């Protein structure tokens, strides 16, 4: 078995090395090289996960510097689960994008010059995401968040259109603002406590003006990054304007990574600072986001914008969990596990949906809903893939999305939080509304009845998309695995809300 000193940083090192390699690699080798590299990246977390399954949580101090001076990377159940999630989505997206010739842009062929920068940015993003889930240090988390945002901006720009440029700049500015707010919060905390490591910090966390202000700034920054209503407005243009594989990564992985940081902070002691206020605020904003994202998704006339607003709506669910954390659920991770399963199922299904949308877009000429008429007969497979992803997003059984929703609803009923329960149902209803609206359009016949566009090589293969959209259904059978994984290191072992324990 690989020692922890190798196994833990491996998921970060492999993508970073590959990013460098992709920059230096001759363009002719890149298509296959990148796909094989993506498989290597996907395999990188496996030794670490094997290690923690047999030996419990593993950690290393980077460069041999112990905390509080140095930086720790910690591989516990939660990070292990997210690493595997990143592997699945990353590998599928890479395999799909690598088969698109020329490299992914959504614009018509006239501007589709080869864009070799895609692969370096892709691996940078992947490495940043993996580093984020392994970090246990406030400043390190900040670096990873900025890393991810910058790689994301670069990827959005690949689209090459003016709209995408505007969206990317907008995204850049807001991501920077979010990062700075977070950094300001970290500064306030550090000035008070003098430590950045989450484990050490936990001992100092007691309500106090400085600490609470720090928490506020950090949470605001993270709310921008995870697109919580009303700070979500950067998301739809950015995710809808990017090339489809990039949208899949941004909507599927980046949003849930920012959410993971919120969860990580909350469960490692920050709940003591604001035991009741913040969960309530999150519930209100999450509920508003569910409704607002859903209503706007219903009013879009482009498929990718529908999916982007759906991300806003689905992010709202994740923030409901903070007020539900007191409930006893039958799953090991408690109600937190429910929100993690929702995040993961959303990531898988949304990535699949964006890839399917990209395929439809290439075949129908655009992603306008009007142009999707007749797609169900002309291109049944992409429509079926979109339908399967839609089933997960709506929370239909027996998918992982259904399991997560059931767990949250179960908790809401136990705590008699009827409003949260209602919002979970309303969100599902809205999701069904906007997704079935798209699917209905695909079933309609085309009045112009133009000859079907021949499926082009640019559309990419079905198989990785199929894996993504089927994964939530398969995972709900194998959930004993994730359940056991989530228990390792008890990353989510926090007292019930509102039972705030006294400050140490």
């Amino acid at each position, binding site marked *: 078995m690989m020692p922890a000193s190798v196994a833990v940083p491996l998921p970060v090192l492999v993508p970073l090395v590959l990013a460098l390699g992709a920059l230096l690699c001759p363009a002719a080798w890149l298509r296959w090289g990148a796909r094989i590299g993506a498989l290597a990246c996907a395999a990188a977390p496996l030794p670490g996960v094997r290690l923690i399954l047999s030996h419990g949580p593993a950690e290393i101090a980077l460069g041999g510097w112990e905390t509080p001076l140095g930086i720790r990377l910690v591989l516990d159940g939660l990070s292990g689960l997210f690493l595997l999630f990143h592997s699945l989505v990353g590998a599928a997206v890479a395999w799909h994008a690598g088969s698109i010739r020329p490299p992914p842009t959504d614009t018509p062929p006239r501007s589709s010059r080869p864009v070799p920068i895609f692969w370096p940015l892709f691996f940078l993003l992947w490495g940043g995401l993996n580093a984020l889930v392994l970090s246990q240090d406030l400043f390190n988390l900040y670096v990873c968040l900025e890393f991810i945002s910058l790689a994301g901006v670069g990827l959005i720009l690949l689209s090459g259109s003016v709209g995408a440029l505007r969206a990317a700049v907008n995204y850049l500015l807001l991501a920077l603002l979010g990062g700075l707010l977070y950094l300001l919060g970290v500064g306030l905390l550090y000035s008070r406590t003098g430590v950045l490591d989450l484990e050490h910090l936990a001992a100092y966390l007691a309500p106090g003006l400085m600490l609470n202000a720090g928490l506020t700034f950090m949470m605001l920054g993270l709310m921008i990054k995870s697109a919580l209503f009303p700070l979500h407005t950067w998301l739809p243009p950015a995710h809808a304007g990017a090339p489809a594989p990039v949208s899949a990564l941004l909507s599927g992985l980046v949003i849930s990574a920012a959410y993971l940081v919120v969860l990580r902070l909350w469960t490692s002691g920050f709940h003591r*600072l604001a035991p009741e206020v913040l969960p309530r605020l999150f519930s209100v904003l999450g509920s508003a986001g569910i409704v607002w994202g859903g209503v706007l998704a219903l009013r879009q006339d482009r498929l990718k914008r529908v999916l982007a607003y759906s991300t806003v709506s689905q992010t709202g669910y994740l923030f409901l969990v903070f007020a539900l954390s007191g409930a006893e659920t039958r799953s090991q991770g408690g109600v937190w596990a429910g929100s993690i399963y929702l995040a993961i199922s959303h990531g898988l299904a949304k990535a699949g949906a964006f890839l399917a949308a990209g395929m439809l877009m290439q075949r129908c000429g655009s992603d306008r809903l009007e142009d999707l008429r007749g797609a169900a007969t002309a291109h049944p497979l992409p429509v079926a893939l979109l339908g399967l992803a839609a089933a997960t997003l709506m929370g239909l059984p027996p998918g992982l999305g259904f399991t997560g929703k059931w767990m949250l609803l179960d908790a809401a009923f136990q705590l008699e939080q009827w409003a949260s329960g209602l919002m979970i149902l309303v969100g599902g209803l809205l999701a*069904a509304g906007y997704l*079935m609206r798209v699917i209905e359009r695909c079933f309609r016949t085309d009045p112009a009845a133009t000859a079907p566009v021949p499926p082009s090589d640019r559309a990419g293969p079905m198989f990785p998309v199929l894996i993504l959209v089927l994964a939530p259904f398969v995972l709900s059978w194998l959930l004993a695995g994730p359940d056991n994984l989530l228990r390792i290191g008890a990353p989510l072992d926090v007292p019930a809300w509102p039972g705030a324990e006294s400050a140490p």
Partner: protein
Amino acid sequence: MNPEWLLPLSAVAPIVIALSGWLGPLRPALPFLTPVGLVPALAAAAWLPDGAAFSFQKGHLETAWLLDPASRTVLWFTALGWLLAACAGVGYFRRHPRRVSFSAVFLIAMGGNLLLVLAADAVTFYTGFALMSFASWALVVFDANDPAFFAGRVYLGLVLLGEIMVFPGLVKGAVLADSTLLADIQARWGTDPASAVAIWLLFLGFGIKAGMAPFHFWLPVAHPAAPTPASAVLSGCMIKAGVVGWIRLLPTGGPLAEPLAVAAVCLGAVNLLGGGVAGLLQTHPKALLAYTSIQASGTLLLGLALTLFEPSLRPAGVGMMLGYAAFHALHKASLFLAVAVSPGVTGPWKRRLAWLVLLALAASYAGVPGLAGDLAKQAAKPLFAATEPLSVLLPYLLAAGGFLTLLTTARVVALIRPGSSAHAPHPVTWLSWLVGACLAVLWPFAVQGAPFVVTDDPFTWAPFGVACYLILCWLVRRWPLPVAMPPGDVLHLATKTGVRPPPDLGLRPLQWEAALSGPAGAAALLLLLLVMLGLLSRAILF
């Protein structure tokens, strides 16, 4: 190999056939493979012993399957109804360019329906319920014209409403029972307000599927829009899913059952009488048949009320409901197939045969003495007479409903009389209709089981009854329709009186969103910052 494997196989086989046919080399043969998907279900119904159970637990996937006498009855009529429609579909879609897609969706809906019939736990049940409901949407819109998409929207809207009623009801039940088994949920309902809400949600949610007023209007909109084999299963088999839900999940007694029973009686009366009157004013045979299904749901609701009022009569009452559901499923599936076959029949002998079958089917459904419908009715009478609050009103109600059924079936005969159309049916469709009609009319005599036992000999009245019925049919055919009612009564009433079902928000949300991404967004951020700072410091200071 364990024979219990037949239980999950019954539901999984159609889905596997659908996927392998759609994606794989079996593609051209898929329409012919549709009936094959029912083989495991029919084998399970015929050979598995009572109490055969199957359970599987891995991760969060806990699934339990059970074949008890009740689910066996439901399995029989569900599988036979789907079989008839599948066979008829082979002929109906013989030259249709999209027949493979139809078969695939049809098989998936079939799998969902069989899944919910055999399920013993809430998650499996709900999976089947959702699978069936959503796959059927594709059946409803299959013709891809404007009426079909309108019907699809109405259908989907009510499906979604039903889903968000059933889902929280099931979760609440599972929380209370600390188990997801349907039997546990049914046995452990509390008496608190939350349980009451959950029970009502389940009652209404399943009522939507069963065509209960005031949620009945999707039936007469969706059935005419769907291709006929799909209408046959929608009306014959799928609306029984709601009945299965009622029987499996509603409490078997206690203080919460009483108001539910009162509601069931009232809504049952509305269904029985309203469905009959509205049905008489229809001009489309499939819309009319949909209204007769609404009437049948009224009868089933009265049966439900009986089991809720008198827990001691529950076994007999459930037997009666299931017997009636079986009777209705086979008759209604055959009557819908008659719409596809009967008008196009050519040739003197064939036409005579079609007349005979159609009249026999209609008379049997109408409850002419001595025929199947009458047997079902006779079996129900003593039960209703034995239940205290129901025995006063019900004889009149049932008599009125029966009279309306006589009229509506006579009107069905008038609307689909043989030889009225030039579109000749395919021989396979013909044959399946014939077999279905024989099955429907003769099955109750073959069973001689609990729901169809009759005390006195009804056959003495049979010739007289049939003669009267023929005269009635002739009269109804001559009788002009006073006024036609559009299918989906309430729906049209709502749109006529200016109530627009979808609230039109116009472009306002888009404008607000645009504002939110400008200065208003910055203001929101600042406001949020102040609110959070204020709230958090308040938490410290006070």
